[in-house]
């Protein structure tokens, strides 16, 4: 009995000690430096005038939005502490956080918010403009309140008010300036958790902790190292020179090796969906015939592309909006089922369409710098050769690719990749909506269907998820038949970080909320 008592005491002591050390592990420690890899210098430090990736990575820590998005897309307060949305979805009233100061000491006011939305993001930001097109007015009844009235409701409007889309900038620094060429674009002054310190071009950008931030900010410094070579970014993570490499900059082929390393944590699954697809130029010869386009869908082995071009880190695509937004996916039109790989059916469809074997020769344009897309293009060429279609691969430099595909529409097939932020209406609708030719990153296939236009506009205005699912189901049926674009795969994001970092990835975007991460032992 005595012995058992002792054992029990020892056990409880051990449990207590372990719990104690676990608690110490979980208590955030201030201090230290977090180092993140960037592939190139940011082109500016003004996040209001570009959608560039590196710009967002750095400036998400310097600037704030009215709201921020949590790891699962939850809308959390940032500069706004609360908000009301009128039942008709046309009026948003935001209450601003009190006592927020710009890094230069001035106090944030509602006028800054109005100025940022109207004069900066609403005019210059490629994504926010799409949301802002629905805004009727922004008014400021007092210095702590902002009221936004909409011409038409826009379902994802609230999500678009984060720092990546609508960063709040200081009116006193930009008013009366030519925004595009303001010197402030290189000397950012924000309200965010970190203050800009220095930028050695080609080497690093350094930010230091903002002592006046309203939430705890743990790491003393954030350093962004510019490492142009993808293999070197993985290596720097392995040697500990870098702490974080986000999906956009991570070489997929290095992922299996990084996973073996116990000092590195790898996170799979990307909250912000990204799609890779093949545009088909519907203005050209036999490609104008939907039967021929459907034949291409049967002939292309998307599982092979996922396995070989993406090292298995992707999902064969299921529909025109992927499967990242549940309400935009319809099981009945799932491409993995209705367009399951079948060269026989492809050949039969081509014959039905009157395309003789070995008579069709197509050009396939792609960005030479994007290895996965180049690999996908090669697999597609091999697949189509099986059904008697010859494909000439045309690797091009990015700006030339944009010119050929979007501006001139001079291509037969092209592989591309798009993201859509937090809603298909932001990034995916532009693939299918009728649009005048010649605009980069907008409908390159020449596809135009008034019914699709009507339904997509409706989907953008409908906040209720159940209603939206019904609308997208109708769109999916039409697009599965017309097939101007063949979706190849949904990307699976992979982010990697050193294991000593705690409380990782506290934002929907892997570049967000690094002030909540702390440096452990």
């Amino acid at each position: 009995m005595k012995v058992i008592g002792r054992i029990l005491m020892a056990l409880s002591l051990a449990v207590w000690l372990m719990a104690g050390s676990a608690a110490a592990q979980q208590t955030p420690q201030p201090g230290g430096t977090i180092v993140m890899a960037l592939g190139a210098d940011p082109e500016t430090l003004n996040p209001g005038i570009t959608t560039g990736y590196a710009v967002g990575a750095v400036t998400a820590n310097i600037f704030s939005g009215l709201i921020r998005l949590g790891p699962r897309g939850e809308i959390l307060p940032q500069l706004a502490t609360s908000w009301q949305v009128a039942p008709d979805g046309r009026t948003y009233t935001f209450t601003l956080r009190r006592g927020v100061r710009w890094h230069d000491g001035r106090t944030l006011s509602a006028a800054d918010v109005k100025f940022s939305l109207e004069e900066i993001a609403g005019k210059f930001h490629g994504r926010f403009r799409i949301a802002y097109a629905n805004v009727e007015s922004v008014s400021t009844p007092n210095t702590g309140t902002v009221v936004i009235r909409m011409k038409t409701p826009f379902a994802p409007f609230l999500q678009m008010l984060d720092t990546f889309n609508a960063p709040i900038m200081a009116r006193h620094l930009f008013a009366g300036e030519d925004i595009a060429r303001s010197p402030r674009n290189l000397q950012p002054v924000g309200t965010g958790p970190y203050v800009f310190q220095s930028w050695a071009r080609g080497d690093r950008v350094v930010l230091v902790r903002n002592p006046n931030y309203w939430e705890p900010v743990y790491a003393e410094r954030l350093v962004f190292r510019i490492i142009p070579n993808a293999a070197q970014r993985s290596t720097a993570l392995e040697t500990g020179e870098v702490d974080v490499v986000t999906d956009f900059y991570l070489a997929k082929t290095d992922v299996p090796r990084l996973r073996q390393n116990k000092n590195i944590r790898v996170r799979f699954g990307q909250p912000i969906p990204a799609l890779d697809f093949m545009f088909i130029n519907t203005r050209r010869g036999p490609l104008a015939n939907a039967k021929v386009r459907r034949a291409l869908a049967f002939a292309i082995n998307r599982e092979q592309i996922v396995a070989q071009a993406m090292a298995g880190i992707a999902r064969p695509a299921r529909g025109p909006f992927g499967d990242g937004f549940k309400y935009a996916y319809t099981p009945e039109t799932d491409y993995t089922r209705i367009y399951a790989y079948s060269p026989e059916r492809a050949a039969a469809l081509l014959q039905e369409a009157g395309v003789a074997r070995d008579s069709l020769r197509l050009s396939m344009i792609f960005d030479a710098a994007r290895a996965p897309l180049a690999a996908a293009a090669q697999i597609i060429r091999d697949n189509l050769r099986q059904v008697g279609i010859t494909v000439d691969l045309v690797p091009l430099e990015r700006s030339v690719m944009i010119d050929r595909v979007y501006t001139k529409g001079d291509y037969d097939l092209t592989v591309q990749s798009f993201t859509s932020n937090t809603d298909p209406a932001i990034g995916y609708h532009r693939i299918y909506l009728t649009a005048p030719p010649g605009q980069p990153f907008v409908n390159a296939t020449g596809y135009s269907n008034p019914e699709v236009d009507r339904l997509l506009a409706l989907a953008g205005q409908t906040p209720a998820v159940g209603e939206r699912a019904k609308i997208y189901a109708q769109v999916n049926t039409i697009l599965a038949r017309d097939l101007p674009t063949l979706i190849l795969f949904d990307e699976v994001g992979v982010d990697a970080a050193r294991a000593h970092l705690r409380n990782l990835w506290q934002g929907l975007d892997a570049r967000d909320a690094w002030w909540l991460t702390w440096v452990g032992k």
Partner: protein
Amino acid sequence: MTRGSLPLWRYILGRLLQAVPLLLGIVVVNFLLIALAPGDPVTVLLGEYPAPPEYVARLRDRFGLDRPAHIRLGRYIANVVQGNLGFSFAYQVPVTRLVLERLGNTLLLMGTAMTLAALAGVLLGVAAARRPHSRLDAGATALSLVGYSIPEFWLGQLLVLLFAVALAWLPAQGIRSTREEYTGLAAALDLGRHLILPAAALAFRYIALIARITRAAMLEVMHQDFILAARARGVDERRVLWRHGLRNAAIPVATVIGYNYAFILAGSALVETVFGWPGVGRLLFDGILQRDTPVLLGVLLLVSVTVVLVNLATDVLYAYLDPRVRY
């Protein structure tokens, strides 16, 4: 300095004046090649979402891209003559400032690599020439062949895997430490540690090249009469080799280094990209990716000027040593 037909200073001046139309021609050709290439620099700057047309128009206006090529060329030349290399599209700062920020880093890398290459290459070449067709000579020849064939970026990756990842002796990339902010001697040592791998990767090919040239030149010199005479006078063999032999073999070696300058710079662009070294070579590489025309033109002009000057220096050295060159 009036040996021979023409005074040396007049020779130098003449060569400098010849360089002016050459450089102007280079500027025009570079400008037109880039201006005629398809693709639009502005589209590369604006991310993956459709940019507002007014914004695109403003950028075009700001960069002067809405004007015809010959007007842009005229303006560009007028600016270059005044020492203004234009305004970088991607960085939004003057190109001259960018190039000057980076030049020191590249000179440091190239200088270290070439010193390393000259020392190692000459030693290896002399050793090989001393006993031609020996095992050492065969080994040096094989090493030279390998060294000359390995691409710098690949060698760079191998060095990183061995010395940074596997052995953890040296940093994998960058120019200074990430977490520490050193000053004074500690900063210099930190820079030195970051310099070793890229300098070695860049030097390797030139060690091979210089060893080959040194060996051949030494073999030729060592059969000449004055060497025989020196030996006959009973001069110590080591002195014969280094003082008499190498001194005479050094000119072709120096010439090779001089004439390879442009290639060394190209090699440094690759090495700088692999190692994240913020030099002019990488500026060129990034300029190509971002279609940053003013940066591209600026760096190409810098390279052209450097090549012209280094060639001039090489020729002057020749002219000084051999007045017959000064026709």
